[in-house]
């Protein structure tokens, strides 16, 4: 017995070591760690019980329940019961003693187990129960290889989130961001794509010159970005699965601020080859471009409204940067921000109701959200002082933004009500320019 346990322990250790080495090959040094900055008491209480491991082989290296727990906690909509406060460890609905969980004031409970699916794959089963009504709300299972278990956990978190809130979950999504490592003039810039919680980072492109403004195609297969690798700014589109890329614009002057149209057929950009920064729409199939603005001001950072009929952009035509809206057919832009002397860098929620932006006042730059359905009322979701690049999750419930910690750039994920904020910290180097990717289809 003792000997068997020992063998098992050694095997597990070996597996862990192997996994660790496998990790180093990719972007081990770029890994993001996560910690919650603040929390909320008004959120829905939910208990996520650790899933039992019922397979014959090695236990999975992913703690599925912990990933679900962290996802729900990060959303701001849920208050996940800390593991040390769990009173029992049921793994199936029939094992739940509801009175005990009700005493702990939990509204919902998630239980599950991981089984051997053969061929090195796992079968993950979970159930979601309403504690007060003692009613099963969800009962599903997923089959996946070890490397995909985090993805399964995110899909489970999405299902739970949608069942309880009525809003589609956005945990099974990816994010893009830029890291800068090393000291000037030997900085290496990397465009990274990772899971929504910062895990599984993969390098898309590396450069010794600045990379900025990543933007996702609506199908999540491509990323447009700006690179200075040729000496001047140029806009590229890179396919994430093949790695192939093409130059979309490398004109004289600025080639910046790419943004895919909702149908993916066009790219809105800011180019200055005709004098100063103006907005253009490039048809990606034909390469044909159409100029949208005509002004001596800086016109940049176009973002598509969800209906694809107009763009919100930054312009300092009134003296300081403010947000404007212009029909894609052209015409005269309409100013949409009036509060605050500096408003730029918008991100628009999927329903077009919320517009996040960088709002500057004096030396403090924070992320503000303007709710157009509430008559343009604004609230701040970040404390400053140098926050930028807001990017909504595809369900509008959270956003990513970049801030500074000392001289280092860090990313934050914040619920759109500003209640829960989480820091995604790079092990070394500086992070900036986050972009939250679109929904992905579930298993």
């Amino acid at each position, binding site marked *: 017995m003792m000997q068997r346990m020992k063998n098992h322990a050694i095997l597990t250790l070996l597996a862990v070591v192997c996994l660790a080495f496998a990790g180093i090959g990719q972007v081990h040094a770029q890994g993001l760690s996560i910690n919650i900055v603040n929390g909320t008491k008004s959120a829905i209480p939910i208990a996520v019980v650790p899933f039992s491991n019922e397979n014959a082989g090695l236990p999975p290296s992913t703690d599925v329940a912990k990933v679900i727990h962290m996802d729900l906690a990060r959303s701001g909509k849920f208050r996940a019961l800390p593991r040390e406060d769990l009173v029992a460890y049921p793994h199936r609905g029939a094992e739940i003693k509801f009175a005990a969980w009700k005493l702990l004031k939990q509204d919902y409970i998630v239980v599950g187990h991981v089984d051997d699916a053969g061929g090195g794959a796992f079968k993950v089963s979970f159930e979601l129960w309403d504690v007060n009504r003692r009613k099963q709300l969800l009962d599903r299972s997923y089959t996946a290889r070890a490397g995909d278990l985090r993805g399964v956990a995110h899909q489970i978190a999405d299902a739970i989130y949608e069942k309880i809130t009525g809003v589609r979950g956005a945990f099974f999504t990816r994010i893009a961001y830029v890291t800068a490592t090393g000291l000037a003039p030997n900085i290496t810039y990397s465009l990274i794509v990772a899971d929504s919680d910062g895990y599984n980072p993969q390098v898309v492109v590396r450069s010794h010159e600045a990379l900025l403004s990543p933007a996702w195609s609506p199908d999540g297969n491509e990323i447009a970005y700006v690179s200075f690798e040729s*000496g001047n700014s140029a806009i590229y589109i890179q396919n994430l699965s093949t790695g192939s890329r093409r130059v979309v614009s490398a004109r004289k002057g600025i080639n910046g601020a790419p943004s895919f149209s909702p149908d993916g057929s066009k790219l809105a950009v800011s180019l200055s080859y005709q004098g100063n920064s103006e907005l253009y729409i490039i048809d990606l199939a034909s390469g044909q471009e159409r100029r949208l603005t005509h002004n*001596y001001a800086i016109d940049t950072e176009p973002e598509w409204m969800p209906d694809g009929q107009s763009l919100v952009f930054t312009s*300092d035509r009134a003296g300081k*940067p403010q947000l404007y809206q212009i029909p894609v057919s052209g015409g005269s832009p309409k100013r949409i921000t009036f509060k605050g002397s500096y408003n730029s860098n918008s991100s628009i929620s999927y329903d077009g109701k919320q517009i996040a932006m960088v709002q500057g006042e004096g030396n403090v730059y924070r992320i503000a959200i303007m709710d157009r359905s509430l008559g343009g009322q604004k609230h701040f979701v970040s404390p400053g*002082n140098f926050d930028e690049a807001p990017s909504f999750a595809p369900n509008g419930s959270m956003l990513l933004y970049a801030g500074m910690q000392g001289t280092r750039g860090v990313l934050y994920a914040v619920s759109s009500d500003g209640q829960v904020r989480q820091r995604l910290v790079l092990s070394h180097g500086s992070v900036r320019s986050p972009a939250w990717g679109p929904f992905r289809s579930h298993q």
Partner: protein
Amino acid sequence: MNKSVRLTLIALTCAVGVAACSKKQEVKPAPPPPPPPAPTETAPAQPTGYTPADLNSDPCLRQRVVYFDFDQSTIKPEFQQIIACHAQYLQDRPSAQVRLEGNTDERGSREYNLGLGERRSKAVEAALEAHGASASQITVISYGEERPTCRQHNESCWSKNRRVNIVYTSK
């Protein structure tokens, strides 16, 4: 204040616009960069003019950075002299080429700062041309906030980053 700034801006942007147009006309007749070696040897023909050696010794020409106020692209009076001597150098050395690199401090969004950096480098370009430099001798580029020389979050640092670097790509 605001009005005068805006007027200056308009004046500058007009100047830039004109410069851009005249540049386009001038770029065509002039074939791609003429071979530089010849003029280097013939330079002594103009005894009163600047020579490449002056770039390292002349106290005015040695200054190659123009600094700006926050969110501004107006060239401050204290930098007019630098502009004037570099414009003179470019006039004296028609084969000389400069790249004007516009930069901003870290505040605000990166893409807007790209625009602001370009506006600053174009303001210096317009001023050089107003002092007699030829548009064909000048290229402008903006690095926005991507190339800070100083990384602290305070005004003394920001003021060093809000700049246009005058870089001679051909002397």
